[in-house]
């Protein structure tokens, strides 16, 4: 094992060419993860609520679209947004934008099922009680259903975020200089120490996923206790 190939290139692995050039490496991985994590949570909430509240044709179209997003490999989706977004908007979009778009759509599609399932799991009694109090459907959702359903969904969101951190590595296929891509660059330059480089990079991703998992689980646990104490 040769550690110097890691220590010599640590700055490049962590931040890419920054501050002399664009941000890359682990820092870009974090940026991509955070952006697609937030966007996928928003998409998941909106589409999940739409899925739970709609019926008939709207619901069928929604189910079809979400099913399609979940059936396409993320690599394909990244290629699609890479080639399609410039045509749609008429000007070039930075590669990072296309990656965030693809990952947010996939993450949002998975989360919307979790959100819809969380809303539907609460049972009709809650809805009927709310409606009996004279609230409208959306008011019941806002004041009765979501405050109880959202905390229960927290684990799904955390799982999706750790999955997204891993999936940012797919930005590699269109040359976005995130951690996996700069690792292959370092590997191409050093040539003789691929095991060291990729095991190190794997450990960084593993540590990151574990950190998010622990942190989010603790946050969710504390929130749960507070709510129980208040109830």
């Amino acid at each position, binding site marked *: 094992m040769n550690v110097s190939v890691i220590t010599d290139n640590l700055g490049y692995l962590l931040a890419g060419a920054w501050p002399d050039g664009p941000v890359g490496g682990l820092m870009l991985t974090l940026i991509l993860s955070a952006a697609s994590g937030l966007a996928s949570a928003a998409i998941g909430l909106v589409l999940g609520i739409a899925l739970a509240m709609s019926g008939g044709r709207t619901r069928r179209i929604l189910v079809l679209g979400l099913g399609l997003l979940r059936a396409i490999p993320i690599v*394909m989706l990244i290629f699609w947004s890479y080639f399609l977004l410039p045509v749609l908007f008429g000007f070039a979009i930075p590669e990072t934008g296309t990656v965030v778009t693809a990952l947010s759509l996939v993450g949002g599609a998975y989360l919307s099922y979790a959100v819809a399932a969380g809303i539907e799991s609460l049972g009709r009694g809650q809805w009927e009680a709310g409606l009996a109090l004279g609230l409208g459907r959306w008011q019941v959702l806002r004041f009765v259903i979501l405050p109880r359903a959202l905390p229960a969904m927290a684990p799904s969101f955390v799982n999706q975020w750790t999955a997204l951190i891993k999936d940012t590595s797919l930005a590699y*296929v269109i040359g976005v200089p995130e951690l996996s891509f700069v690792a292959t660059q370092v590997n191409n330059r050093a040539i003789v120490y691929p095991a060291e480089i990729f095991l190190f990079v*794997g450990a960084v991703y593993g540590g990151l996923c574990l950190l998010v998992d622990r942190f989010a689980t603790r946050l969710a646990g504390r929130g749960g206790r507070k709510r129980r104490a208040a109830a």
Partner: protein
Amino acid sequence: MNLFGDPLAPRYLIWLLQGFGVTLALSATVCMAGTALGLALCCLREAGGRLGGAVTAAGIGLVRNTPLLVQLFVWYFGVAALMPGGLTAWLNTPHSLPLGPVELRWPAYETLAGFLGLTLYAAAYIAEECRAGLNGVRPAQRAAARALGLTESQIFRHVALPQALRIAWLPVVGQYLNTLKNTSLTMTIGLAELSYAARQVETETFQAFQAFGIATLLYVGAVAAVEAIGHAVARRAPAGAPRR
């Protein structure tokens, strides 16, 4: 602007179909090997003693918490560099075994690395689905079997396992679907499957929409077919499925 352009020349369609064939063959072998390994890991984790259980759990956690892409790079670049030179040379030269009319060819190194990486990744997830299935069997079931005088191994074989497999089946089908989609990552180590072929066709023809459109349709069709088969098998399972 014409989005679609002229239809793709037949030879490019053949490239895509060949890639699709590789994707299907790779997915099928990975699913079979991953299921066998996943079941073994699940047993080791549940019944391998404290040390065996802990080591298995750590290994599964490691595989599940790192990107598949990085794992493929470790198997493709890393292991190749760590192997003794003679073995690397042997793996990189073609070998074949003539068996009458057919000739068995030893797969190229990227195929081996891709197969190994995908199988370990799938096995780690399948092991966890099986464990969740075992935990989903209600404790009263084991207690009832014990009261009937069954031994622990009989309880596992005749009571816990059939119910666990039924609970775990659809999640495992979900992992088969993930495997099918994950084979697309092997394009990064040069395995000529569907995504690789699509990229190749796009590079040669500049007809991105057709190349990726056809590839996407093939993926969606395969995913839909596997999902339909998985649900059909679940419906055909014998009556008496566990109530939840």
